[in-house]
């Protein structure tokens, strides 16, 4: 009796079919991965920009909350606005009276004609000056605002405001910040936020 042994391997048809199925599955997986990757990149990018915007606004707000309202310089009444604010924080009260900290300044500083950064300075223009950049992606004009046309284009009752703008309404100071970064697809994505604060001192 002859026991025929089976030869290992696949037929050409089987290989072609399995290869085709593998390719189709790979294409689907690649599409899903690409979509997921794009979504992840976009989401991560948006979250980064949002985080940067929130951190910047929070830093400005917390700095101004402790400022002496009587010594605030910069914010204007609407529809005007200011690109800077100069203030002194109140450190406490001693026998001689209220003790103020050094002069601090938050302003928008241009790096290109269309963009700039938000810079915090302590003792500005002095030998003891310290400075920290709080954001590097602030455009020269506020979101949806057309520059230098004398009108309020974005409906916030402010005319021609910059990417960083300070306004005041009675004792309240409004902080308007726009952050704009270029995404992975080359498109600029701006985000804006307005924060209302009251100087506690």
């Amino acid at each position: 009796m002859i026991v025929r042994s089976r030869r290992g391997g696949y037929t050409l048809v089987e290989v072609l079919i399995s290869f085709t199925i593998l390719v189709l599955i790979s294409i689907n997986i690649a599409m899903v991965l690409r979509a997921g990757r794009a979504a992840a990149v976009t989401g991560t990018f948006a979250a980064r920009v949002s985080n940067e915007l929130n951190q910047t606004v929070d830093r400005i707000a917390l700095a101004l909350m402790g400022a002496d309202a009587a010594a605030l310089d910069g914010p204007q009444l609407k529809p005007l606005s200011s690109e800077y604010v100069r203030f002194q924080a109140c450190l406490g009260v001693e026998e001689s009276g209220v003790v103020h900290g050094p002069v601090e300044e938050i302003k928008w500083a241009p790096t290109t004609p269309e963009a700039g950064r938000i810079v915090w300075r302590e003792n500005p223009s002095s030998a003891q000056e310290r400075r920290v950049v709080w954001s590097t992606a602030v455009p020269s004009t506020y979101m949806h605002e057309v520059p230098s046309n004398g009108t309020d284009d974005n409906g916030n009752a402010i005319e021609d405001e910059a990417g960083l703008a300070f306004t005041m309404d009675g004792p309240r100071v409004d902080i308007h910040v726009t952050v704009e970064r270029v995404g992975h697809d080359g498109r600029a994505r701006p985000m804006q936020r307005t924060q209302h604060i009251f100087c506690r001192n």
Partner: protein
Amino acid sequence: MQVVPRPHTRRRGAALLLSLIAVLAVGAISATLRRVQTTIDGDQRFSIDRRAALYVAEAGIAEATLAISQGKSGAMASEEIPAAFGEGLFWVAAQDRPDRSIELRCTAQVRTAEFVLRSIIVPNLNPITSRGFFGIEGVEIGQGTLIDAFDSSNGSYDSQVTATAPHRTTGLAGRLGTLGQINLDGSSGASAESTTFTWGEWIAETPTDEESKPGGELQKGPSRAPRPQEPSPEASTGSTVTEVSSTTATASTSGSTLIHADVEGFVLSSGDAVVKGVIDLHPLGFIPPPVLRPRTVATLNGDHMVTGAEVGLGFESSVEVAGDLVVSSGASLRLNGPLVLSAEALRLEAGAQLLFDDSAGPIHVFLADGIQSGPDSALNSLAHEQGSQGTSLFVAPPEGTREHATLPTQGRFHGMLYAPGDRVVVPADLRWLGAITARWLETEPGARLSFDAALATGGQGAAATPRIASWQIVPVGDGLARRLAIDPRTTLRLQGITPVPSPTAAPETECEVILLDDSGEPTIFTGHVDDLPSGSERLMRMRWVDTRNGTLRPWLRPTGADFDGTVDAYREKFDQIRESLSAAQPVPHHLDEAGLQELSRELEMEILLKKTAMMDAKPVVK
């Protein structure tokens, strides 16, 4: 039969290996993406929690400020057993400062963030007496006037004197202010001519002692405009020295000078003034509180004439004289506290004497038509300054034309005068310890005024509320807020600790109260605040036992006065609510809106509840 061995094919497991590698790769990618997303989520959550922690910290400061307004220390809960507020926790540490203010440090924790705020609170600042000697439209200080300060809570003025020559004084900086102009070496009794300086010149450089030449005018810096008029030589009386010391809004013992003035005002001097210290120009606004007629129990019709030596008015401790209160020539009237007195005008004829004894209780005098004093009239306070409960004189602004208030020509008075519509001249022989606020304040040459720092807080006739003098964020951790690894509420739950509710977080519960019972006699209550009798007519003073060290906090004087019976009205409403709720039956089942409306009709809540917009839209009661 031929058996051909079957080739042995080994199962290598290559597919399993490949699939395992694929699974690991996918797992690694997933973990990376998860890590990135967790970091982003963590940053966003921390940003939100940090903001929430800031608000909880501000709520803690507000709770502590409320406690301070009640005379408590301001400390709230503790780090071991914090107070709960919303989704966060907080505790407040309080520290008394030498200038009577209180420093608060509030730590708040919300989920993953911890925020710390520091604030300095000036408790129950009386908006009138805290300004010391204040002329709303202007101040004129006569030559040789001395203004200094003392603190009656530490003892009498004489016990705090540190110098006797060339003037008897405590050496403490007084308090002088105005919204208008200050005229040093006023023209009263002097023929000196004044030299005018513009406000901008005055604040350009701070004058120092070196800048004032003997017998000359006060000099200014190089940026001054030419003076319109040079002082005449007769104006220089080298032997006359006027000392004016003022201070900042927080009582200062450093001798610094602060003159409140608006930007339109200016300082005038004939050149004989010596201003010690630094003039710190800090314009502040001041809206004079209204002068309100207090509620009284008894009424005396017509004028009341005092012809002999009278003690009291023969009535209860709360009396209104429907006409004028007149003290005849040579007569004397002694008023003992506690007393609320209302009259049209107070007239002291020549040689009349008015005496106040507020050792047993505060005295509140309201005068609708001013004070008129004749020559040789006297005003005296009998109580020891440290034991004084406070004498407050209120003169309402004139509705028509009348003479300005004239103070008695001599005496020694400890208390406050508020006459926002009058020009008040303080005679040289009337020793004034306390505070004066008038429309225009003037002192005769040689007058002596001493600001009592103890009057700056609490008091009667004006709402005295806490004021935030300073507010700042205390950096913790790596920045303004600290990241917490675990939710603090979870930590407390695991430790079996229940945080205290925010409204009851103040530790003070034992108190000492001086109150007026139904018979009008002062009585003292000591014990738990919940056991305080509610039927007393009036509460005069109270203080709390500080649980941090077992000592008694400073006395708290009640602020304001019940001018329109509001307190009684609220008590009546509260009793009605209590009766309604006591008579209501408990509801065994859950009620819907219709059921609640039906129940509310039975409770007759319409007259008790304040209407809201929602109630206006759907009236609950027919």
